[in-house]
């Protein structure tokens, strides 16, 4: 901070930009006394655009989004900012808008445990030096002093599991690749974050891209890979640009390329852009797409760890998984494993979305309940109406009724309750939601986004739409045809669940069945005997 000058931070994150952050930045940029830094987003998305101003007290936050829905001018922002910087605003936290006060003291952030997302919203994502100044490259530096096998074991000991949804232990996957056929190997970051309700990968790539690159480089060292790909969906142009810039900067700084910082590691990374296909988030489909083919799912075995990209041993990890690795190497696997519960070790970056008052990114130790997340942290619905359903785990996740929100968000507890954690997306619905329509939407989504390879998914999802259309049409006056339709739907769900080639067809029944089980009245069934009726 130069004397007499003030640094202001405006997120360049896509979500912030979608609600005017670029306009705010442009306005602030016209003030010559200000040094403008574009950061990622802190994850308090309902406050975006959230401007931060440097002060002696630290970074003071100001939401440019007024409660009445209008945007504040730069001048207003600056006047509030200077006042906030000199004297703590009264009731700023309670207001949850405008003057936020010291950002890290904000209760939404203060109760979080930021490991993976520690630098989000703080650093300049285009600055490799800034990254280094905030603890970047420490993990990679340490990894390069270790034998690759020791790096793998460090990750094993952290208990880190894949954050993409399947929750496979990351260290074990790496161990498999490290022991696979010698020769060319790949590290692929799955950044095809297509699940509705999830955006943490995007935020991380836009706000802390070097963390992903560092994680990939550590992985490459551990498994003996020389080439990396980041497969980003085309719906994420900001993330694509941020990653490309970061790759260039990391190369320039010697963190990618041949003999990374004089070490034996040679590794480089390329961004590959998807083309509008949800299924390419499935790892084998993503590999097909990276090879330049139709994103059709591959049967397993062989597993990608042994025969992945171009038939070579390949690590496929989600962005958050890889971005967590630098912290594990920097601080040790044990320390990471100290977070969380049971076999859900570490932290999870939950994403609160949909009809929620305080939507955003919430990184916490595993174990918080859905209710705590959506009510205590999320503040209930944005509409102010009662919560009726919460979908956890993306479009293939279950709809939880309000009564069942006390389930802890861990892999085990969710599975035990018949749900899934997925990528940590939590979408809140108020009592206006029609779960019959949502069940139909689940089938429609599958019919449109199925790769089309396997029969249960390709034809079954279309028949699911049609069967649900008949059920919903009859729900006001259910008769024998309606009952037969429901029976057929149940059979279809079983066929898809157990018969499908991949998780898309296999899990599409999950939202359908959960809706049917917990919200039977939305299907024209008697709700008395069922637990999830309208409150």
């Amino acid at each position, binding site marked *: 901070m130069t004397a007499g000058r003030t640094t202001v931070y405006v997120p360049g994150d896509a979500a912030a930009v979608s609600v005017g952050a670029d306009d705010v930045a442009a306005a602030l940029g016209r003030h010559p006394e200000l040094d403008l830094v574009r950061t990622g987003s802190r994850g308090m998305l309902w406050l975006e655009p959230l401007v931060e101003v440097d002060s002696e007290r630290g970074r003071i936050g100001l939401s440019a989004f007024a409660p009445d829905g209008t945007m504040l001018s730069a001048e207003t922002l600056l006047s509030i900012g200077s006042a906030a910087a000199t004297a703590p605003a009264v009731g700023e936290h309670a207001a949850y808008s405008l003057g936020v006060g010291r950002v890290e003291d904000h209760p939404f952030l203060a109760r979080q445990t930021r490991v993976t997302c520690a630098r989000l919203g703080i650093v300049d994502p285009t600055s490799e030096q800034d990254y280094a100044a905030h603890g970047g490259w420490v993990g990679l530096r340490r990894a390069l002093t270790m034998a690759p096998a020791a790096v793998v074991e460090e990750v094993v000991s952290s208990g880190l599991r894949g954050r993409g949804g399947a929750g496979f232990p990351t260290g074990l996957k790496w161990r498999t690749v490290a022991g696979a056929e010698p020769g060319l190997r790949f590290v692929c970051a799955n950044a095809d974050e297509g699940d509705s309700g999830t955006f943490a990968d995007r935020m991380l790539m836009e706000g802390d891209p070097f963390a992903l690159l560092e994680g990939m480089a550590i992985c490459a060292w551990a498994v003996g890979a020389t080439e990396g790909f980041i497969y980003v969906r085309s719906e994420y142009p900001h993330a694509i640009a941020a990653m490309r810039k970061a790759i260039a900067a990391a190369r320039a700084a010697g963190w990618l390329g041949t003999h990374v910082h004089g070490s034996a590691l040679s590794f480089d990374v390329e961004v590959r852009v998807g083309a509008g296909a949800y299924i390419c988030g499935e790892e084998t489909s993503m590999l097909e797409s990276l090879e330049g083919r139709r994103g059709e799912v591959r*049967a397993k075995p062989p597993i990608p760890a042994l025969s992945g990209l171009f038939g070579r041993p390949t690590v496929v990890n989600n962005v958050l998984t890889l971005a967590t690795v630098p912290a594990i190497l920097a601080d040790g696997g044990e320390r990471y494993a100290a977070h969380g519960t049971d076999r859900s070790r570490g932290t999870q970056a939950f994403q609160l979305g949909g009809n929620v008052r305080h939507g955003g990114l919430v990184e916490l130790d595993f174990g918080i309940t859905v209710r705590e997340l959506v009510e205590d942290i999320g503040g209930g619905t944005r509409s102010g109406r009662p919560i009726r359903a919460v979908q956890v785990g993306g479009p293939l996740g279950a709809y939880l009724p309000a009564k069942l929100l006390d389930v802890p968000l861990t892999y085990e507890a969710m599975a035990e309750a018949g749900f899934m954690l997925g990528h940590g997306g939590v979408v809140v619905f108020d009592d206006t939601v029609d779960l019959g329509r949502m069940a139909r939407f689940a089938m429609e989504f599958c019919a449109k986004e199925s*790769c*089309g390879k396997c*029969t249960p998914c390709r*034809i079954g*999802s*279309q028949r699911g739409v*049609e069967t649900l259309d008949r059920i919903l049409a009859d729900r006001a006056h259910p008769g024998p045809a309606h009952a037969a339709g429901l029976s057929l739907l149940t059979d279809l769900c079983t066929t898809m669940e157990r018969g499908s*080639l991949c998780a898309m067809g296999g899990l599409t029944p999950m939202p359908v069945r959960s809706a049917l089980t917990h919200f039977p009245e939305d299907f024209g069934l008697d709700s008395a005997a069922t637990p999830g009726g309208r409150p």
Partner: protein
Amino acid sequence: MILAPEPDLGTPAVPGDPTLSVTVDGQPVHVAPGTSVLRAAGLAGVPIPRLCATDSLAAFGSCRLCLVEIDGVKGTPASCTTPCVDGMSVATRTPQVDALRRGVMELYLSDHPQDCPGCARGSCEVQRLAAEVGVAEVRYGLGGASHVDDAGDQTNPYFAYDPAACIVCSRCVRACGEVQGTFALTVAGRGFDSRITPGGTNFLSSECVSCGACVQACPTSALEEKAVIELGMPTRAVVTTCAYCGVGCSFRAEVQGEGADTQVVRMVPWKEGRANEGHSCVKGRFAFGYAAHPDRQRHPMVRDRIDEPWRRVSWDEAIARVAAGFRDIQARHGVGAIGGISSSRCTNEDVYVVQKMVRAAFGNNNIDTCARVCHSPTGYGLNQAFGTSAGTQDFESADHADVFLVIGANPTDAHPVFGSRLKRRVRAGAQLIVADPRRIDLVRSAHVEAAYHLPVRPGTNVAFVNALAHVVVTEGLIDRAFLAARCENVEPYLQFIAGPEHSPEATEQITGIPASDVRAAARLYAAGPASAIYYGLGVTEHSQGSTMVMGMANLAMLCGMLGRPGVGVNPLRGQNNVQGSCDMGSFPHELPGYRHVSIPEVRHLYEDLWGVTLQAEPGLRIPNMFDSAISGSFRGLFVQGEDIAQSDPNTQHVHAALEAMELVVVQDLFLNETARFAHVFLPGTTFLEKDGTFTNAERRLGRVRPVFPSVVGKDEWQVACEIATAMGYPMSYAHPREIMAEIAATTPTFAGVSLDRLDAQGSMQWPVRDDSSMGTPIMHVDEFVRGRGKLTETVYVPTTERTTRRFPLILTTGRILSQYNVGAQTRRTPNSTWHPADVLEIHASDAEVRGVHSGDVVELTSRVGSTTLRAVISERMPPGVVYTTFHHPVTGANVVTTDNSDWATNCPEYKVTAVQVTVATALEHTRGVEARAAAVVAP
């Protein structure tokens, strides 16, 4: 009655010992590691329903019918994609699995026509499996979205695509890629909208080469032969061997009716056939209609003069006429004034009898075969080097090659089924070197790219192969141990080839190939570890064809690339039975088994058996016959199944020779060009009527079985016997098996061959020295047939055919996929849809200086003649070289080819003719070409 399909175990066999024990529904079975549960179940006699799996394709896992339960394994894995584990216990019929199968079948049926004709024909597995898994009704109803109204595609002449019946199992797509290697099919769209398409166009306009692999793979009637749609399903099948190229594919001729009423519905590649393993090309698979073509001649005919009309006569009269005519000529002009030409299209038994007729009844050695004009240098060269006149490997050997050196061969067009095998191996990682003046498909086509394309200037092969050998020798890449242990004349050869005149830098001016490419290619070949040479007529049909064959043998010996899988020197034979017709003693200097007529004990063997005295001197070769005819000492010719007037070089010279003869006897299916000069025409039989054996390019004897009786009343071997008998030398056999028995009894390399063994045990590869062996897939394993392999100093002697200012371009000739040789068969099928006329391919710069545009009619002129045809500017051609095919008699490509021939064997130099190309402005030329093209297109 529905013909039983061939057994299908669902996923391909995995090599290896059956070390894993698995039980399927309680049935124990032992399988090799890597075997799928699906295949194991089939082997255990517990077939599992499936639609997307077939044992010619890698497991795919899409239909989800083959789900099973496995002890200790979660869920219901697909058995096709699940490998067996030792001790595994699989249950294929649990209530859960049964319910899932019903669920999946119900989904299939909800998007499948209820009244699909495929069902009525019995060619669709969907309804059969629906019944098998117990789906009685489709509860989804039939009002939902479906594809049953999708428009079909009838553009391919042989098969139709009906997307309504398609279940999107991708078997066709995968067959087109994995088996054929063309990748002409894809799935378009995704999700419920996924549809199979030949790349968004129709089949005829697509990249499809009509090999039939997709039709073969389709489990429904979505892809079906039009003949099946028209005639219904066949009712019985006869396994036989294809009569097109030297690959020698096995087919099931699937037919309706019996005896003379037999109707061939389709030819289906036979999975058990070792040469093709269930694959086929557009010719063998579909182009059999010529057998029933109206042009087919069914009666003997005679005439006194060739300008008179033909007169239909009885067989007896025709044969008497032939016998009397030949004897009369011999009485007036000597025993040697007549001769015969046997056909590489005919069976071994046919050929053996014809050569016997010539040697025993004609009393001379004037027997030659059409192999003279294609692979005679192979016989000479490989015999000189290795001691046997045949390729060294079986086709399967190619699956073990690391490097292919393909010289003067265009397998994807001329030997398509082998071409597919080669491309498959290249896709799996083998390196490819293509030496050919043209950029043939192998140089670069979908998913295949040669490491080096060496565009050798026509006529300079020997300089090129010497340069390869020079690099290998001077860079120390030779296999010294192999040379020391197995070869002779080593030091003189090494000294010869190390000479600076053979260096790539010195030969670059001759061959036109950059020295650096030659060096790199030589290093690649020498590095192997297994490098294989495959070659075709681009090697043999040169004035130095025999030298080139020896040059390639030299190279292989230098690098130790012989006597094991994945290596060798392998001719790709042009015709179905080139190998066999040579084996059977069709050359004028050799008795059966390549034994020189001068060897007394061999001669005595046959003299004792046949009761005649045999000539100890070589007879006339085909070109010698023509020369002698013109000079007057050769006056009678029996020619079987070869259209010498069209296929032999320097047409005017051939015509003059034929016109000079007193008696020309032609036996053929059609009144071909040669028949214009004939006095007696004897109708021949197609392979569908023949009984006996063909020998393919890998020395494999394949059984040829009659699908229906001879439509002309006699078999070729019978006709030859009757001519001999009428000439006073009685010859008779009750059945071709007696002929093969005589061959086996007199030829050590065939000692173990009999038709009975072939019927019982399948094909075999000669040498078959006794009854206990199925023959010799790979030759020269421990030692060469001649003892030590002989290195020969292969001096490069340029052809006398030189380009000049008058004839500045070099014409080279070849084949195209859909047509075959002179086109006698394929032109009489819808194959002409793809290639209605021969065209002249020319490089853009050569075209430009001559003012030639694609589609122009041009005049092609050499020192000996000229013809007209349409030109096509082609990126395949190097500057200075033009190319055409010789499938259409109207083109008369051989009007321009010369008398030049291989120094050792007189194989014509088809591949090098100095020519000029000019735009044919004269209207009559253009009209003539158009009229001919129109005549060809018309069915």
